């Protein structure tokens, strides 16, 4: 089972994503509520896939992505963005994000994306 680390400052979003992923054969090894915690947990948990929300306190998704990519350049990172964040997502792509999902998403979307990773 592929191991996933979920990052979002909203409890609800983490819970939704976790539920959808677990239902489809992924193991959630950790949750982080901001980018800084995500980076720290990444180092410890070494997940196969990381999801990063973009807007978060302390450290946002874009910065966390850069840190994670510095730790492991082959890290698979999916950005969770909202409409209107095209610029940030583009920067994320340049910084090595594997892909992105736009909120709000549903289980079908999650399956389509994650089965390709």
């Amino acid at each position, binding site marked *: 089972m592929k191991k996933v680390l979920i990052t979002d400052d909203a409890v609800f979003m983490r819970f939704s994503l976790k539920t959808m992923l677990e239902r489809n054969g992924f193991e959630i090894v950790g949750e982080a509520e901001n980018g800084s915690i995500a980076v720290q947990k990444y180092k410890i948990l070494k997940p196969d896939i990381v999801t990063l929300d973009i807007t978060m306190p302390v450290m946002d998704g874009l910065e966390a992505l850069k840190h994670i990519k510095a730790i492991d350049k082959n890290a698979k990172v999916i950005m969770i963005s909202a409409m209107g964040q095209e610029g940030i997502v583009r920067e994320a*792509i340049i910084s090595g994000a594997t892909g992105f999902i736009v909120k709000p998403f549903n289980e079908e979307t999650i399956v389509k*994306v994650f089965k390709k990773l």
Partner: protein
Amino acid sequence: MSGDGIIREPMLEIYLFEATQLMEQLEEISIECEKNKKIGTEAINEIFRIMHTIKSSSAMMMFNNISVLAHSLEDLFYFIRESKAINIDFEKLFDLVLLGIDFIKGEVSKIENDCNADGLSEPLVLKSSNLLQDMKKANGVIIKDDCQEKKEDTKYYISAYEKLGSEIKQKYFARIFYEDGCEMENVRAYTVVHNLKEIVSEMYHIPEDIIESDDSVEAIRRDGFLIGFSTSTSKEKIEEQLNGIIFLRELELQQVEEYPLEFKALKAKIQIILENPITEETIYKETPDKLDTNKEEVGNIIKSGKQQSIISVNISKLDMLLDLVGEIVISEAMVTKNPDLEGLTLENFNKASRQLRKLTNELQDVVMSIRMVPVSTTFHKMNRIVRDMSKKLNKEVELVIIGEDTEVDKNIIDHISDPLMHLVRNSLDHGLEDKEERIASSKPPMGKITLEAKNAGGDVFIIVSDDGRGLDRGKIYEKAKFQGLVTKPEGELTDKEIFSCILLPGFSTNESVTEFSGRGVGMDVVKKNIDSIGGAISIESVVGRGSTISIKIPLTLAIIDGLEVAVGTSKYTIPITSIRESFKPKENDVIADSEGNEMIMIRGEAYAIHRLHRIFNIDTEVISSNNGIMVMVEDNTKAACLFVDSLIGEQQVVVKALPTYIKKAKGIAGCTILGDGNISLIIDVNGILDR
């Protein structure tokens, strides 16, 4: 939440929980910012994030009216943040935000009560976008478009990685269609271009402008994303890479001799910009373990919502847990104090049962502590009321909160919120004078309401005080007499007793009924609420200086320390917290008045006697005073003596409510099962003394 036992789908439960929490945080921040007439960067970011979160989660849960409203408010604060606007009408802004909060809270409440969240947010959304327009005009700033960034010079490029001659390059044509609804197709196309860059020597694409133009999204949805490129990488590898595209619906990939006609037009416009093979990127060092966070006055407000290592538990589970622990305490007593064991010497058993007792006590303590929550949330809710009312009544008021970390059982918190609100409203409406009057009485123009919580013994005290005009003893007595609520002459009543008249039903000295209070249904409901959780209210006041209302509530309803007493063959439990002392009376100390009411003199003061056997109609042989025991008890206003047969002992007792098929008996607060299996009724001291 689902207090009536309805178990909701966890996702909805979490949505409601988080939405409520975020609205509370937002309200706090808003009121604070409005008061200080400034918004710090922390606050802007926090408000933005809250709106952003509500927008997304509401959309996920299909509560679109909430999502749209959150979106419009998010836009407002996005503007404020990006433009660093300084010309802000704080009152208008936060009036709107607070209205938005009220709307969302309203919808959440509907959902919690299994109704449809059918509120219309359009009016507020409109207000919001109008305010945004006004703000833009007032600040004359052009917003940086989120999409605007440094132009990528390489729309089409020739890679500097031209491998010197060795491999043969092939031209390819690809058309990519994305899944419906995946959004931001232009950025997805950009991803493809970005990833192909590594392995192609030239690349052209249609639409050309996938960075600045929003039209490209439509074009890609309609015709697909077309790419023409030249590479030495094998077709299999290209196909593999392109098939890995996220949200790919359809891929057309062909090897071509020449690029299709559409691309010829592009080539003619080509600008050759050599790409720098070494892309500049900030080298990211290992993350420092401690991050510098810049928290301003918003910091302590955020703290309550952002704690780690905390899980949220359904309240009904906690109730079950506490019930079970209560049962265990009773069972433990039934085992260790079993009548079968009477007279036996059981050293090992006693040792073991002491250990068991120790453990059940610990378990009990832990479970009770789980249910304890600080009063801070309830106290902070009052900020909103003070803010709204002081505006409406045109009074300047400051709310001071002391001891907000004091903890109280969750059950109890739910019951003090409404009474507190009423008391605060009263202070604002009737207690505090307006500015002119205050200045005329040499008081500071700003009125002060203090909310204090503190622990004392087995109780928690919640105190609401104001520095307003205070209570008029004479006026209250007159009104009470007029309503037939008092019979004694004024001189015989203490201040406390007279002031407590305002807690009686139907009492109100207000000539005019205001929007907030004055119908005389308020204070007695407050008293009822407080009584229902075993608490007591007492009122103190000094005319012209202010009033203080003290609410005493037990730490927990569930388990109390009690004194077991016997009356006939029945057993009663008197809460230790109500007991002042107990003693064996002498016959001569007991005196009766003309109506047969008995009294006893203790240290020069007279106390009424309540004979439990008479009150509860119990057969007992202990009639004459010197055969029984007097237990002096007190409630919020007075003390009296209860006459019982004998004292049995101190006992920790699990309070069980009287079963619903038994009508509420005045003087009985509940019941419990003793270690020997007998039932003991728990005395409600307030009820007895009120007789």
